[in-house]
């Protein structure tokens, strides 16, 4: 498997009145072609910023530095805007958290979909082109599982339910057959049933077209079950990466362990009893702790934790902690 997206030591700093704030600090991510990778992080952990940095929706106040931000051996940071836009437009797509804010409230759904399709090279003219557009829209909507195509095309985004609106944005993201799909909390605001429907759609795209997916969620319970690898990020720092099963069965990082217990995944924990928690609250970007940012809340923290731990690699997994929960054998 070739690595399609390679991120090494990515740092995003925001210019604030009190100086630069590193909201994403030394982030690493390697996406293999055709895998589903889930990134879990609580609010303020910089996961949305990461998604925007990958797709190039960058604002002037951001300072992005990285050892590597490579898309198929091409350096994204060295490109000019036109090249970058070409790659983003052809190969990448993003699904946003709230479909209502993503769709234009003034235009009918059909019109918005045909705008996306119009980005294809113009092979047709006039009435023939309209017919072809119509056919493509019908195909797209059928693929994401919408039955009542005429009614949906003629309605405004406000008239649709959340689930249908999110399916529309999945359809829009698919119009180009992108290689990489970044989904930023695609179903967090939806009920269990709608969520599983959307995930089913996304998983089918992954199996049918071999689309690489980066799913971003806030919570382990709303994660896609078909995920192959899992990254946990806290306050802009990468905590742990590894294959799903391994990370869930024997977490290496105290944060992963705490997240598992707080997400009710530990089935031995009886109901109606208190959950083990991390004390304190998530640090704001104005007052980030030095060293390992989990430090003040970590149950295993010691004096050395004010120094940033290095990312340790053990077989397929990586973690950044001075006191990991698994044994590291010396020859590795």
């Amino acid at each position: 498997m070739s690595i399609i997206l390679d991120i090494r030591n990515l740092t995003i700093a925001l210019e604030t009145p009190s100086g630069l704030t590193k909201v994403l600090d030394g982030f690493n991510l390697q996406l293999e072609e055709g895998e589903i990778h889930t990134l879990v992080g609580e609010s303020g952990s910089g996961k949305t910023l990461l998604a925007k940095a990958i797709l190039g929706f960058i604002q002037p106040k951001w300072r992005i530095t990285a050892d590597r931000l490579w898309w198929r051996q091409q350096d994204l940071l060295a490109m000019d805007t036109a090249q970058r836009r070409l790659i983003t437009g052809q190969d990448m797509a993003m699904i946003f958290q709230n479909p209502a804010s993503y769709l234009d409230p003034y235009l009918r759904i059909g019109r918005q979909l045909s705008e996306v399709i119009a980005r294809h090279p113009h092979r047709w003219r006039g009435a023939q082109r309209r017919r072809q557009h119509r056919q493509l829209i019908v195909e797209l909507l059928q693929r994401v599982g919408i039955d009542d195509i005429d009614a949906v095309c003629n309605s405004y985004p406000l008239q649709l339910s959340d689930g249908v609106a999110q399916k529309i944005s999945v359809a829009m993201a698919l119009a180009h057959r992108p290689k990489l799909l970044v989904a930023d909390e695609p179903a967090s605001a939806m009920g269990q049933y709608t969520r599983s429907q959307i995930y089913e759609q996304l998983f089918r795209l992954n199996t049918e077209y071999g689309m690489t997916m980066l799913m971003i969620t806030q919570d382990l319970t709303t994660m896609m079950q078909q995920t192959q690898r899992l990254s946990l990020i806290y306050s802009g720092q990468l905590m742990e990466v590894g294959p799903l099963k391994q990370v869930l069965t024997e977490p290496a990082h105290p944060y992963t362990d705490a997240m598992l217990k707080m997400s009710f995944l530990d089935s031995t924990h009886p109901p109606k009893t208190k959950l083990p928690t991390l004390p304190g609250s998530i640090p704001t970007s104005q007052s980030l702790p030095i060293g390992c940012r989990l430090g003040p809340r970590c149950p295993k923290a010691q004096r050395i934790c004010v120094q940033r731990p290095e990312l340790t690699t053990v077989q397929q997994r990586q973690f950044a902690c001075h006191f990991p929960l698994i044994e590291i054998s010396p020859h590795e």
Partner: protein
Amino acid sequence: MNNHLHIHNLTKYYVKQLGWLKQQRICALDAISFTVKQGETIAVIGETGSGKSTLIKLIAGIETPHAGTITLNGLQLKPYDYASRCCHIRMIFQDGLASLDPQRTIGQQLLEPLWFNTRWTVTEQREYVLNTLQKVGLLPEHFDFYPHMLASGQLARVSIARAILLNPQVIVADEALGALDPSIRAQIINLLIDLKEEMGVTLVFASHSPEIVRHLADKILVLHHGKMIEFDTTTTLITNPQQSLTRSLLHTGNLTI
């Protein structure tokens, strides 16, 4: 009293105007009846648009029912009778920041229920608010804070403090835990469990997270298009649900370890 909170035949319509004279009635809740014992935790689950929020709002008194009665300890709660209802039934709102007044301090807003419902002196009221703040895990200093100065977890604690101020018998909550981060959510769940033990309060909450429902609830009420399709204890519904909808709503995914 044996039947603590008794809900009988509760019905609510929403009227949709289709033209000048044409109206369409949309049934949000259709003749719901159930009884809750003192100190129980009831979870209301259902798909979007199944009437979960309507039921919670009707119990809290935000909306008035078209038919049916709500009885607490044998006394019927009349609609628009806010003076007596607000002492017995309190609500935890979903969005802490949106439900608090941004122009007034936390203390001023927490004093308000006491000001209207007790005959205590100002010092007594202030003392009581400070105690309540401590009970929910906040500091006395937070009395003088404005809502925007607090983090999401602390705002959730303020919402809970406001709900328990008047020692209510029933607390209702609509998706109060859904929008919180996992680590904060776990803290708030622990706080709710503590408070329930201490005060013996009845909790009725709506949620779409099967994990929270399984963890907190004694009994589960399943709604579908405004109708109650199942109401039983959590263990029964998890092990032996009668309806396939219940099974899919309580299904937590294959993420077993």
